[in-house]
């Protein structure tokens, strides 16, 4: 028997339905933010300063990278790329929750990828998200299947935009925060996925924030290809993690502070304007434009 399965809804997790209720009850324009995190084995690399490490004079290859095996000296806490990332994500969520402007506008989802992609946190209004949910992110296999992470992220973003639009809410441009610490294992598929992301970015349908977590020059080169402006945030040392996420949070605040049709395009290199909380709104005309107009 053939059934018309189109438009018959579907099956979703409890978190999805919670978000559906939030969406139709709170009509505020949303900024869908998908955080796509690499959880391959290399995210277990230590970030501790060298004076806190004991070198074991052994080396090997993990996740396609040549590594030296080390362990943390007794008395020091082990800080891995992943643990640091979890910490700053928790901080960012906490800050965003307490920001009046963002609290009901930002909707966040966390996708992790290694061999497969997993939706760790379904899209949830930031004010309803479990602040400590990033702490549950676990390391996966020794593979960086980037294409799977990207495809799932785009799929979830599309789903969220559709949900928002069906509820008659206005939407800001979706944001993809993509974090990786190495080159993809699935090179051909990863390049195809990268092209899709870049195309969306070029068409102005997606804001991409690529973040390199000590990815090295090859990894950074690949990440640069994701965004139209070929820019990449770098997180190489402990302080970088905090700075980058503080800046991302500020950019989200600035986006949410304007009507969605007047959304500005974040320029990674430009830095955050110090007079963000002001009467500045929209775009200002340049002196050249004015001169041309007055003499037209």
């Amino acid at each position, binding site marked *: *028997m053939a059934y018309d399965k189109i438009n018959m809804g579907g099956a979703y997790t409890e978190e999805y*339905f919670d978000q559906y209720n939030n969406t139709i009850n709170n009509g505020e324009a949303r900024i869908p933010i998908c955080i796509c995190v690499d959880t391959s084995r290399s995210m277990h690399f230590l970030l501790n300063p060298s004076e806190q490490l004991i070198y074991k004079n052994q080396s090997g290859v993990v996740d396609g990278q040549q590594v030296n095996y080390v362990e943390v000296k007794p008395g020091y806490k082990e800080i891995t790329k992943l643990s640091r990332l979890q910490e700053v994500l928790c901080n960012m969520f906490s800050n965003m929750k307490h920001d009046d402007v963002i609290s009901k506008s930002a909707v966040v989802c966390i996708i992790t990828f290694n061999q497969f992609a997993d939706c760790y946190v379904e899209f949830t209004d930031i004010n309803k998200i479990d602040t400590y949910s990033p702490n549950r992110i676990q390391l996966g296999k020794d593979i960086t299947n980037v294409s799977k992470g990207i495809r799932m992220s785009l799929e979830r973003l599309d789903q969220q935009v559709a949900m928002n639009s069906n509820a008659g809410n206005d939407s800001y441009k979706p944001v993809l925060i993509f974090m990786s610490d190495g080159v993809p294992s699935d090179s051909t598929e990863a390049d195809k996925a990268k092209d899709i992301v870049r195309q969306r970015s070029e068409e102005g349908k997606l804001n991409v924030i690529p973040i390199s977590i000590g990815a090295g020059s090859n990894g950074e080169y690949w990440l640069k290809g994701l965004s139209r402006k070929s820019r990449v945030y770098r997180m190489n040392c402990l302080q970088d993690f905090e700075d980058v996420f503080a800046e991302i949070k500020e950019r989200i605040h600035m986006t949410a502070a304007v*009507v969605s049709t007047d959304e500005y395009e974040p320029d990674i290199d430009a830095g955050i304007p110090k007079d963000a909380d002001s009467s500045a709104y929209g775009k200002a005309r340049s002196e050249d434009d004015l001169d041309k107009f007055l003499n037209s």
Partner: protein
Amino acid sequence: MEQNTNKENKGNVKVPLIALIKKQRKLIFDSSSLNNVGFEKFIERNGKLARNSRGAFFIPNFVSDLLTEKSKSILQELVASGAFRTINCQNVTNFTNLVPLIKEMSKERGQLCFVSNSASVSKAILIAFKKESIFVQFFFLDNNGDLVSGMPKDNQNSQTTKNQNSRNDAGNKPNPDRFFIKDVPERITVRPINITQIPNRGMLVYNSKHEPIKLIEEKIYHHNAITYSTNIPNVWAKIFKSSALNTFIEAKVKRMLSHNVQFKGLCWPIDFVQDTNGQFVGFILPPAFGEPLQLSVFKQARLQKLFPNWNKKDLCDLTITILQTIQYLHSKNILFGCINPAAIRIKNKDEVYFIETDNYQIEGFPSLIYNTTFTPPEYLGRKIYLCKKENENYAIAVLVFMLMMPGKLPYTINPNKSIEDSIREGRFPFPFGNVHGNHAMPSVWRFMWSHLTPFKDVFYNTFQKGGKLEHPEDRKSVGSWIGTVKYFREELESPNDIESLKLYPQTFKKGKNDTFYTCRICGVSHPRFYFDNRYFDNYRVCNSCIDKKSNASFTCRACGKTYYYTNKTDLFHKTMKSLDSDWKDQKFCKDCKSKTLPCSDCGEEKPYYSLKDGRCASCNEKRRNAIWGYAYCKDCGCQFSVTEGERDFAIQKGFTFPPVRCKNCREKKKTNKW
């Protein structure tokens, strides 16, 4: 050249016709109103309403003799369609003699309305009606076809096109009370003003009388200036940054100061300020307080936090406060150019501050800021322009919409098009009339819209492509919007539906004769069109609940997560299960289905849970049936084949491999044993 053709008497308010019709008023027109240029527009906009409200519009038969040919033909059509009724009065040739007849038409106080553009006729009627103790309301038509309450001034009598042109010509003469609206830019060469040091906190600046003013504390940042509090109470100073200091801004500020502009909450320049060398650096202005509009009212969370006790009436009051300031600006021929919501600060519903006034369009000085939200479609994409009131009326319509529906945009953004193109496309997101079918969106916005009855016609026709008010010259003026908001505000004093008072209503507006049905899931009552036809009789689930979580679920066998079906899917399953006995329940979730790996044999991507020993089901089947080798039967001596599957089985069970007997002999041996 002055463009203002929209003169309004101070204190007169534009009244939406629907308001009068709803209150069962009877409108009697005289020849001066019918001959007015606005009459055609009035009928164009309200013709349908007039036809539907039979018995509301009257015209005495002697009036038709005084009409122009054009007005006469329009009136004939209107009488034929039943929109206008003729008062047949024999031997009566003027309104004064008509009073006894009109008196019989309505005995209820305030029910009679007289529409005349002749001040003398209105006055004569007033006297005659007073004698008879009849209460009558007076209106006249303005040139835009809006109904304005009160009596007209003499110059509003029968404004023909010719008269209007002569008025425009008169507008070229300088008017000390207000600016001109110009369509050509000022001829200024923009040159930077070089300043050794831009004054900042703690430094002194000097006003035009060379009196010192100390800059105390930064109050407002703008991309081109900083506004400081000063040592003078209630005086702030806006100091431009060096990048923005030029001859243009200096000339603009000085032009602004050439007219007396004062209105509560309007932070208009009081005087310019100079540095120690006498160079222009900025101006002083009244202080401003409150939160930017887009961060206070346009954001639900902030609105509820800053004004927790507000209801729709308060929102109307705020809208009126804002619109009255804009009306004052328009009366002075000052235009925004582009409304900057961050420069409208809300302290409370009666206290609103308009800052950054130096960005307004003053005569040939254009606004230097630009945003997409408030730019009229005809100017989208232009970098700088000098707009007219009719262009600005679009921005005002957007502003009123975003205040009445806090923060919502009046157009649908098409994901496949740019924002500008989406706006030009003119797809208004809400229905008007009976165009809602079964697709009413499950949304707080849809409910909110249903409560905005007096606005629906105007919003729809302003924003929808092809709407009656789409063209700039047809757009509603600020006065007209004030009238509509005031009417709505008055309606909210005794609302038909208490839900109308809520800022975020939970269901549609319920009229006196409307039937609402209760949803079996949420228990909220909604109109019939908010239920899916397919499930109305048996299940009665509203559109809000149809896509919500049902109790039906399944647990994915691969990841162990529990998934719930939407009510729609659940109802579909129930229907299909009753029709199809082969219906199978879902085993795996969509996410797990998408986690694929290549089969080690055929290389095809398959869900990881379906792979066994790295192979897909069909490759495993093939492998099981593949021949491993051949052996000779111990009993019959025949050669028989041994499959890979048999080999795996023997190894798994610890049997002898390869088997010593063929399949037939094994069967025989088993049978003999028994």
